[in-house]
């Protein structure tokens, strides 16, 4: 398999695939954590910081999806 002269292109394609898929997953998860933290801060009545994602994540964080 690795004797193919174009094998490097195959590796590069799968590496690109890994980077893009991992990028999508990490971006969406990071956004979710940031939003949860911001909603938790707001529900506690804390002052709304313009940079809402900067606070430490509290392990006792109530799930913002259970606000209903």
């Amino acid at each position, binding site marked *: 398999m690795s004797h193919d002269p174009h*094998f490097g292109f195959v590796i590069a394609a799968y590496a690109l695939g890994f980077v893009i898929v991992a990028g999508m997953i990490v971006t969406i998860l990071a956004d979710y954590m940031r939003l949860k933290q911001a909603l938790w801060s*707001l529900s506690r009545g804390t002052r709304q910081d313009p940079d809402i994602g900067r606070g430490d994540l509290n392990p006792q964080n109530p799930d913002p999806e259970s606000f209903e």
Partner: protein
Amino acid sequence: MSNYANPANFLRLARVLVPLSATLTALSLGVGLYLAWFVAPPDYQQGETVRIMYLHVPAAWLAMLIYVVMTAAALGTLVWRHPLADAAQKAAAALGASFTLLCLGTGSLWGKPMWGAWWVWDARLTSVLVLFLIYLGLVALWRTIEDPGKAARAAAIFTVVGAVNIPIIKFSVDWWNTLHQPASVFRLGGPAIAPSMLWPLVVMALAFTFLFVTLYLMAIRNEILRRRLRRLSILAAGAKEQAPADAASAWEAAYEP
């Protein structure tokens, strides 16, 4: 079904579906990669380079499928003015751009050894590049228009107009003389590729579809939470300034917890 076209119900549904879909993604991707790398034979002309096809083709299918999903959501915004339709459309745009980028990148990495060029202004390649630019344009549109209602309508109109590009991508290889090969799976007379290569391709396409469903559910959930946060922030600011509580727009009221 219409019960789930409600942000609160959707969040409850997503809580169940996301782990299930993620598990299906992991299983199908594992099987698909095994088949693509260790079971599928090298092509008699392309050699090992054919393995790029197992990424490139599913990415291309997803790039078009996501746009079709976005067009349906755009109609939901324009016809029924449903707030969840805009959230669904917006959540899909970045995913569509990512799958299109993967399609273009892997196609380029296949094209260099097979065609001798990273890029040619072929009808298929060019129309897919236009699709990528449309996705980027939509993402930019949502970011530049501050009013969510106006942004939703503008993006919906842009999406519906841009849908004309999907049949152009699909039939570009039939309508013009292109360097890109014609359809070999979805064609009259059945697939033209050997079953030993078709099955890994089908499994990888299934894995990419599950991956999209998982990420899409998560992205819609994020979009709902973002709108809920915006709504609560406006209400909190309004209460602080003794302003009327209806400072947030009616559009955002749908995300009230």
